[in-house]
């Protein structure tokens, strides 16, 4: 759980609102992987999730995710896992191939937003079209929520995950809680 007591208090104090459910996700291994073409295949193999080549899409295998964030940038996410062995495996697989692997497990926190009005709440700060046609299940992207940058992931028609730099998380939680107030 996060050390950030302000966030802790905020998340514990959240009202149960069925139309827009808001919760903090647990700790996870997060690795920022950067590479040219040669490293993409081996890194995905070592991680166990093929790194997507298609822009703004994620791959998933079991509970591990590989998010495309840029043409040479992936965020590898393994909830509940330790980053060190994952990093070691990827480093071993990409030995001699120019790349960068940085452990960013503690940089951000995960937030889940779910419910029939989840997209409506997100759209109070996120400028993207969140219809299923424009932002389908399987899509992920960096974008904005109000004045904070977020990584937005769609896992289901009414299920989104956000990855937010930790110091912005209280703002993002507060913003979404305010956005969903009309459903309380």
């Amino acid at each position: 759980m996060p050390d950030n007591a302000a966030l802790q208090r905020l998340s514990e104090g959240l009202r149960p609102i069925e139309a827009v459910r808001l919760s903090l996700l647990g700790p996870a291994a997060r690795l920022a992987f950067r590479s040219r073409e040669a490293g993409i295949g081996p890194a995905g193999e070592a991680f166990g999730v093929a790194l997507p080549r298609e822009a703004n899409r994620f791959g998933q295998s079991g509970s591990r995710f590989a998010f495309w964030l840029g043409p040479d940038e992936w965020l590898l996410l393994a909830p509940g896992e330790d980053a060190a062995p994952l990093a070691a495996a990827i480093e071993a697989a990409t030995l001699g191939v120019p790349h960068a692997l940085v452990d960013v497990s503690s940089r951000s926190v995960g937030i889940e937003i779910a419910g029939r009005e989840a997209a409506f709440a997100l759209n109070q700060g996120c400028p993207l079209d969140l219809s299923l046609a424009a932002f389908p299940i399987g899509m992920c992207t960096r974008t904005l929520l109000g004045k904070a940058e977020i990584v937005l992931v769609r896992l289901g028609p009414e299920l989104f995950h956000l990855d937010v730099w930790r110091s912005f998380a209280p703002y993002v939680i507060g913003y979404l809680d305010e956005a969903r107030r009309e459903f309380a």
Partner: protein
Amino acid sequence: MTGSFRTASGGRIDRAKPLAFRFDGTTYYGFQGDTLASALIANGVHLMGRSFKYHRPRGVVSAGSDEPNALVDVRRDDARTTPNLRATQVELYEGLVATSQNRWPSLAFDAGAMNDLFSPFLPAGFYYKTFMWPAGAWKRFYEPKIRAMAGLGVAPTLPDPDRYTQHYAHCDVLVIGAGPAGIAAALAASATGARVMLVDEQAEFGGSLLAETAATLDGKPAQQWLADGLETLAASGNVTLRTRTTAFGYFPHNMIALAERVTEHLASPNPNLPRERLWQVRATEVVIAAGALERPLVFPENDRPGVMLADAGRTYLTRYGAKPGTRATVFTACDSGYRAALELAAGGVEVAAIADLRPQVHGDWAAKALDAGIDVRPSTVVTGTLGRRRVSGAHLAKLKAGAVGPAETVACDLVLMSGGFTPSVHMFSQSRGKLVYDPALQVYLPGTSVERERSAGACRGVYGLKAVIEDGYARGEGAAKDAGFGTSSPRAFAVEAAELGTDGFIGAVPHGRNPAFAKAFVDWQNDVTSKDIALATREGFRSIEHVKRYTTTGMATDQGKSSNMNALGIVSEQLGVGVPQIGLTTFRPPFTPTTFGIFAGAARGDLFDPIRTTPIHDWAAERGAAFEDVSLWKRAHYFPKTGEDMHAAVARECKAVRSSAGIFDASTLGKIEIVGPDAAEFMNRMYTNAWTKLEPGRLRYGVMLREDGFVMDDGVVGRLSHDRFHVTTTTGGAPRVLAHMEDYLQTEWPDLDVWLTSTTEQWAVIAVQGPKSREILQPLMDDIDLSRAAFPHMSVREGHVCGVPTRVFSVSFTGELGFEVNVPAEHGRAIWEAIFKAGAPYGITPYGTETMHVLRAEKGYIIVGQETDGTAVPDDVNLGWAVGKAKRDFVGKRSLERAAMSAPDRKQLVGLLTTDPKIVLEEGAQIVAEPGVKVPSPHPVPMLGFVTSSYASATLERSIALAMIKGGRARIGTKLHVPMPGGSIEVTVVEPSFYDPKGERFDA
């Protein structure tokens, strides 16, 4: 009691739901579905306000958002008081409290009305001409007086307690306006499967159909057709319907701003609902179906309460069941006046006469009116009206060959006027579309589009219900098609409705009276008369943009919705040139006034900006730390003990660091991990320093320049391995530095195999500084030897502290032996507490940014942004040593080679010591060579520089300062002066290092 002017039946009000409301202290009754204006009219109340300049009694003119006169203040409580609301748009609710504006002491008797008596002395440009003398009087006397007299309502002073929300929305086709054209457009577009959004500013969809009692559509009464159409749209699943939603701004690339009033019409709103929503809609295609506004006629005393637009009078009767009077005179230049006269006559309002500006009337309107027993007078003008707080009669006179004959007075309590219809081109014009003048219709119509929009129906000059509906349908279909959807099945509409023709009039109606005593209003809200506009043209104003500013016509909150075309007509006639040659003023957002609340949205209080806190923040807060804002971060400023002020706390913290140990939260420092085979090469190009030879495990202080050679940022950089650097930046500079690096890497050197990852938030950073820091930390280290031999100053080691992975830097920004312990953020507080506990026997003291600033100033370390201001090169701030002279190139190098960058008279960093050690200079104070200069000085005094940092140093038991001074290094040892309002302060220029200048304490 529901008002003696209420019809027995009909209209869209809900007679089963009576509502009590108050206007100017009197209780009245209306019905659900009334506006404040319709309810007052049903109660026989027409006097709803006083005018802005002359304080003339004013009644309601229109029935919509174009209302210039009936501005009221609606009050729920002290904080929820809204001025300047149009009574025609205020929906009635139980207990509504409204007051009129621009009157003192009361609406019926207003002291300011004496302006009206003096009005011959208040011509256009009066304010410009009169209140300019004597100098200074404007601010002291005229402006406050004029503002008090002329204000448009009073804003509440309490914080706004309501919530406002902001929403992004997307659709394939946005239809603005839900009159017949808009409904038809939405039906056509939605039938293709396109995502459609239909919005209308009124409480109900339907526009003109809501007042339609005679027409049939597809064999159904118009209102039934409307209900069926709305049902189809609501059931379609791909249509968003929003009433009470004003499209107020058209922004580039089809972004339309909508203001939705969510709870304004409710007696007791749910506090969880927003009062209003701002919608920022991105539409692939837009259909503007904004309709047309009826145009007033400009004739003398056309502003008396009881004078209103013909179609407004008809709307009050048919839509709201409120008779606007008992005996009407109709003054018209088009068929609309006839339709209103006939429907009012059928509704029980006597119509005394129709004065028709036209010599003859096309179609059968005149015959119908004569059949109804109405006195129809062609070629007739109204030359004035009678009455004070309500019109009591109208003067009618024949026009013969342009001359006005003798007037006959007709008694009436209602004058309906119609000068034809002006297409509502506001949104089209805001979209930057080009307007084209149509000389036949005497109106501007949408011409070439810029955005992906199209107008439909009356707002593009299509008149007649059948034509409007068919146009709407075709335009809706076309929009959907252009948005990538198929065509809907063709629809023909069987429409039976009155045909109104397209006649109209612009300008001032001839009246034959002495112009000095005849006020014919063009702009009601700003009290501009035809005479004012004529005067402006006589005084040489030729462009409508200038006439507008000189007379203020069209500059009120209604943006000239009713006045613009008549103003153009008057200028055109006065100058004898065509309307298009005069120009057209620009339509700007907002279409109608918009609350500040929706622009703020959620951005207030704790959500105004993200408040970034570190993992150690709460520990500091629990100990009563004072915080300061550094960019979006909250940083502990100092840790006062009971009874301490900042000065005392900082003195204690400084002494602790110098004598034993202090602990400091440096987590906010920016961090970038630079990884890849070309990492060192990239560092060489980005920083002034040389990096190739920096061994893994060592640190170096790096200086970063902009390409113009000026210092941009600095920070300590650790080399973790041959291909991995841990770079730190200033707190505020972190995003800027990363973007600067990405710019060069991506666009100049894409061939380099190196990547940048922000790790600012990955690490909590705990600085332990002071002679005891090694002793405190060593026992906590699992696998790092902190000894002098194993871990020299400016080194980095990776390992574990209390079982947690760590990167430890031996680095000092204080001048003492010191370490910075980086741990993953979630462990930050635990490790901080462990160090604090281990340091307790040594008196370890938490310190904040103020102490950090003092300690570094004692050492003469600069802070980028405090000593530097974007015009300092490294040498200016004594960082010349950090510039790799042997390097062929780095960002900023070529600029440093310019001669001016090494000129001896550049401002250079020096220290200052005041002759009186107790005086702490003011940061930013100017420095001169001349002693005893007074502030302000009677003669020019050359400025040599300014104080950049200044503190009381507890360690040195005196004040110290840093300064940037022209040729400062050459002035070391000399005396300079800091002129201040309390007297000039003498200082001595010294080396900018006050404490341990040889740096012997790092390896203590």
